[in-house]
């Protein structure tokens, strides 16, 4: 199961990197959303897929039964989902606001903070 999922993670990463290489902010953000999902799947796969024994401890035992599923990767993924979702929400609003204020969603045309028409520092004293 893990090799197949690893291949899927690779596909997610390739697609998201392709999208993030675009100049348009919306495409970049779609890439970010895909990257977040790819990473969640990666955490899940790296934690090993075991589904036969649920991670529930018997009352009188000190450890889960042999071969029990690992619950920790799912806790990590849950945290990562919340974080990546909230960041995506923030960045979407920011992109919309940038489009309103700067009049473009092309990153090459966003030169307000670093103007192209900068003549450089004065050369004499």
């Amino acid at each position, binding site marked *: 199961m893990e090799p197949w999922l690893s291949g899927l993670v690779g596909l997610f990463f390739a697609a998201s990197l392709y999208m*993030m290489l675009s100049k348009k*902010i919306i495409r*970049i953000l779609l890439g*970010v959303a895909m*990257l*977040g999902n790819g*990473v969640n799947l*990666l*955490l899940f*796969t*790296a*934690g*090993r897929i075991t589904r036969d024994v649920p991670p529930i401890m018997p*009352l*009188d035992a*000190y450890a889960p039964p042999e071969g029990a599923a690992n619950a*920790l*990767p799912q806790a*990590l993924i849950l*945290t*990562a989902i919340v*974080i*990546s979702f*909230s*960041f995506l929400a*923030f*960045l979407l609003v*920011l*992109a919309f*606001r*940038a489009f309103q*204020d*700067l009049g473009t969603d092309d*990153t090459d045309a*966003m*030169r*307000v*903070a*670093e103007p192209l028409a*900068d*003549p*450089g*520092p*004065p050369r004499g*004293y």
Partner: protein
Amino acid sequence: MAASSDSPAVDLAAAMITTPASLQDWLVILPLIVPLTAGAILVMIRHSTHWHRPVAGLALAALFLLDLLLLRRVLTEGPVVMMMGSWLPPFGIAFTADLLGTTLATVSAFVALVATATAPPSINTAERRYGFYPFLMLLMTGVTGAFLTGDLFNLYVWFEVLLISSFGLLVLGSEKSQIDGTVKYGLLNLVATTLFLVATGLLYGALGTLNMADIAIKARAAGPDVPLGALAALFMLAFATKAAAFPVNFWLPASYHTPTATVSALFAGLLTKVGVYALLKTLVLLLGPSSAYLGTLLAFVAGATMLAGALGALASSDFRRMLGWLVVSGIGNMLVGAALVTGGALTGSIFYAVHSMLVMSALYLASGVVEARAATADLRKLGGFYAASPLFSLVVLALLFAVAGLPPFSGFWPKAILVDAAFAAGAPWLGAAVLVSGFLITLAVGRAWLYIFWRGGPEGTPDGTVALAGVRSFESNAQAVALIGPVVVLAVAVAVIGLLPAGLGAIAEGAASGLLDPAGFTARVLGVTP
């Protein structure tokens, strides 16, 4: 976790610490609780903006005091550990205050306290209403958490906490240039932290643990089939982006000059150093032997970062943007320790990190004073400040001396240690890069001082005459104190470190040896040494 009454008695001591944490151990977590609580209170009273500054000031003062107490304890006893939820390590999240993290946390609290204590006029009522102080408190929570945590995934969470608060601070005011800067800062930093999460997930898959002390032991015991070298390269790329090392530094000069001077000062003092700290911690302490092969690459990155920063500073026509390049150049100096991994180089890097936090914050605050009086940061349009206020001009000159690494200020000692360490480690060219970048920075900051302060007025003023029309006087004495006070306090700290470097040098040396030898750290957390 309480067992129901009819279940067989469970011996909790097998999995948990049963004795309650002593009051002393709470010192590890208090620097986190204080800003987090203050941030929550500030969000709740967000409409009563007149309460924001007193609450935030009190919390920052308490934070600085707690950090100092913690630092004193770490200096006498070594790393202090507190287990969240009382789980026995390596389960549960360990908070581990070691010398490196505690020192940086203390200096960051000092910088934040000084930069915001005097009610900076640049933080006006509108910005308070949009949440400057709540964001500031949450930023401090994230920074302190990142410096004190002993769990890799928890470090990722604190990175995200400080990242989202820094987004808020950066875009506060909604100027067009701020939105432009935030788009670049936000996207590149988010990709970097996601890369950090990828590396963390894969490391968990390889070693089965997230506790830093446990990782340090298992990484040294792991066989050659565990791909730790590749993971070290992933961590390196992620943290180099966070720290703004060349060639992944371009988000910093694109964004740091856009917010108000106080926010820029906080960012320059706190954020990039968290990246450097995480880089040192993962590559040296956690993955030590597995990441050794990255040394040459890191040395090239360090040299290129120093020179790129210095050249960027030389090419800037805007004072604030020049300061952004100076931050980048400083990051190059801090990476020398990670590249050479010797006691001397790490000592120099840690010393430089503390110096850079103080001096870069002070310079951004000074740029705020210049902008408040001249309404521009363009070198061509500035001039005449020496004639208007000679004492302030000399304070800024001292800070510029410090950032260029000239004695007797704080920048001289770490650079001297780094050059010495580079020659001792057989990389004289890296020592030469430190010196050449220092020379170029001396040119850049010398020129900036001549233009802004020494000459009589803006471009076009004849030699020997003084044109003060471009320099407004302060609106009131209170405004003058609020703007200049923090610069002077930080400049005094810079001068004191420059004249009496022995204390900080000893702390940096202790922190460096703590990084190089994980035995003391792991013994304190887990009770075993690798």
